[in-house]
């Protein structure tokens, strides 16, 4: 970790980032990723991963329960649509704030332990929330069906201004419909703000202290820092990012289901962060993009498509190749995901960012280096 960039460099970073994000529909077109639904996903999961990285990347605390906050954000947003208004702004604010409150509660308890105990505590809380959402909380969550908009919803604020139309209303930002590109641009703006805050935190004294906690928590105590409030603040901030992502999901598609809270969903954000590069600024965002992009492509493949791809091969070979690859696509996308997970953790614990760095140094200084299982990873304290 080098000395933080100067405020000037910070400004340049955010400017480049803003342009890159807003121009995504242009530069992602050649790889077939420039359509609103997918772009929205990039932005939303990017926010989720950036927030997760503030906890895991800076403090080293691995939460396996962040999906719970995602779920809380989604449910809150849908309720805001049902009760108050179809405007996404209050929905997003309520979703973030409520997820933050929820994170205070869970964080306060879970952070009394560290290492794997912390992981298991957060997992336990997330599972509790998931189970409750499916059972006793059905009046709030609508159980297995999921929470949806209905014709009978009061929508107090909206009903003061306009007559309810015939069909289900759609989410808006002061009249602008939040589907398609407007939806993406709304998410993109939120993403840019989220990235900016994360950048600020990374380069601040606060961020430096979080990194120091990750590096050596014992020393932090003898250095005069009370580490628990630092960890709690980091936990709550990252919980709020998750809530924000969850409410944006609802803003672009107004429904919420308990499966968003399942621990496999927590696992997904962990994977995004790891894949991109834990503790790096841009890594989690890259990870989220790569995973959502390939999920999109891979799950649309089936055997016919594969046969077309490998048509040039001799027939028996073609059949064999298709038989193997078909395991990894379509329904089998999760197999690819799992394999990727392992490969990254084993061979490239620094993720894409680390890979790019190595590639760069390889190009600039062409020395042969061997990378294998035994990377020089310092074992973290638990």
């Amino acid at each position: 970790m080098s000395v933080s960039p100067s405020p000037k460099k910070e400004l340049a970073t955010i400017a480049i980032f803003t342009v890159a994000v807003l121009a995504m529909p242009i530069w992602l077109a050649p790889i077939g990723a420039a359509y609103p639904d997918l772009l929205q996903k990039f932005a939303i999961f990017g926010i989720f991963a950036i927030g997760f990285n503030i906890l895991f990347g800076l403090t080293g605390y691995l939460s396996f329960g962040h999906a719970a906050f995602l779920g809380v954000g989604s449910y809150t947003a849908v309720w805001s649509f049902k009760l108050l208004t179809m405007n996404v702004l209050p929905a997003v604010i309520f979703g973030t704030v409520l997820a933050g409150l929820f994170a205070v509660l869970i964080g306060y308890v879970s952070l009394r332990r560290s290492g794997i105990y912390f992981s298991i505590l957060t997992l336990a809380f997330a599972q509790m929330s998931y189970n409750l959402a499916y059972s006793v909380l059905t009046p709030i969550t609508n159980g297995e069906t999921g929470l949806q908009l209905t014709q009978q919803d009061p929508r107090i604020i909206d009903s003061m201004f306009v007559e309810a139309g015939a069909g289900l209303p759609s989410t808006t930002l002061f009249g602008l419909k939040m589907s398609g590109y407007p939806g993406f641009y709304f998410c993109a703006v939120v993403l840019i703000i989220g990235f900016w805050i994360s950048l600020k935190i990374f380069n601040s004294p606060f961020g430096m202290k979080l990194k120091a906690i990750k590096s050596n928590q014992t020393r932090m105590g003898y250095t005069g820092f009370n580490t628990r409030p630092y960890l709690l603040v980091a936990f709550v901030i990252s919980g709020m990012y998750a809530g924000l992502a969850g409410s944006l999901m609802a803003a672009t598609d107004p429904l919420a289901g308990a499966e968003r809270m399942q621990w496999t969903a927590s696992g997904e954000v962990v994977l995004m962060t790891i894949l991109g590069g834990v503790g790096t600024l841009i890594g989690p965002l890259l990870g989220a993009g790569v995973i959502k992009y390939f999920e999109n492509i891979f799950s649309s493949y089936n055997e016919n498509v594969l046969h077309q791809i490998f048509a040039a091969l001799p027939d028996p070979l073609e059949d064999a190749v298709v038989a193997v690859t078909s395991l990894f696509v379509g329904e089998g996308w999760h197999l690819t995901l799992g394999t990727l997970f392992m490969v990254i953790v084993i061979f490239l614990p620094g993720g894409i960012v680390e890979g790019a760095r190595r590639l760069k140094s390889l190009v600039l200084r062409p020395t042969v280096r061997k990378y294998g299982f035994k990377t020089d990873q310092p074992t973290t304290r638990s």
Partner: protein
Amino acid sequence: MDAIFLQILNGLDKGGAYALIALGLTLVFGTLGVVNFAHGALFMMGAFCVVTLQKVLTIAKRVKDPSVTFFDAYKEQPYLEIWFGDTGRAIIDYVVPISILLAIPIMLIVGVAMERGLIRYFYKRAHADQILVTFGLAIVLQEIIKSFFGANPIPVSAPHVVAGSAAIGSLVGLGDAVVYPWWRLIYLLFSGVVIFGVFAFLQYTTYGMVVRAGMADRETVGLLGINIQRRFTIVFGLATVVAGLAGVMYTPVLPPDYHMGMEFLVLSFVVVVVGGMGSLGGAVTAGFLLGVLQSFSSMTEVKAIIPGIDQIIIYLVAVVILLVRPRGLMGRKGVMES
């Protein structure tokens, strides 16, 4: 009274499964220092040993159905039945117990391959890395199973003789109304035997002694010139077999599907934490204890007082235990503490 007795039994057999999985988790954690998130997938693979064997044994031929005389009717008849008659039919009927013989070598191979091929490279890595890589492995294993067997649960039945329920009420003087499925009783007994076996192995063999010493102080045992590496492989294999057997025997209780492992894993981890990380006795005790607690909390009378308690009781207990007694019920000092 009857209801309470039944709930205890109910809890104990589920607790048996928790205990068996938690035992393996603890064994691996205590000796190898590895947090294995793929352990639940091993439980699931054990269950799918039964499914595989059942599929193989019931490979059938279309034959004319002699019981229908008006027209030519066909039915599927397993080759085993055609070739061996009643013996063949009995083999198919006893598919679950027979699977044990199949599962032991298979799970042993899986376990050894996993330890040699992956886990050993993670002894010195951070726990977070161990969690992540085994989590990835768990996904891979369950997706492979899914691509072969589909996503739906596959029913497996217990042998015919024990398919019914035992009138245990009259045995313990509670009246004939109290009945309990035979197979669940067998499962309870089976988990008891396996647990006893593992403890006896660790307690009374020199091999087990070294393993226990390794759990107490890995580095010192390594320094004694004992090839701790090979023993670790065996321990991992043992844990794998125990998880597999737990899965095999559980199939008649719960039709196996590809993600059953994950569900049991999360719960078993909680069990391990409640019992005390690194304590075998704690894992077993907590397994049974939480099983019974869960079963009690799902009684209608309890749910009427605290709705939804059955869904969260185990996690709630874990949270409370971790906060008031961080080492768990029987945890040793210094395990996993900074």
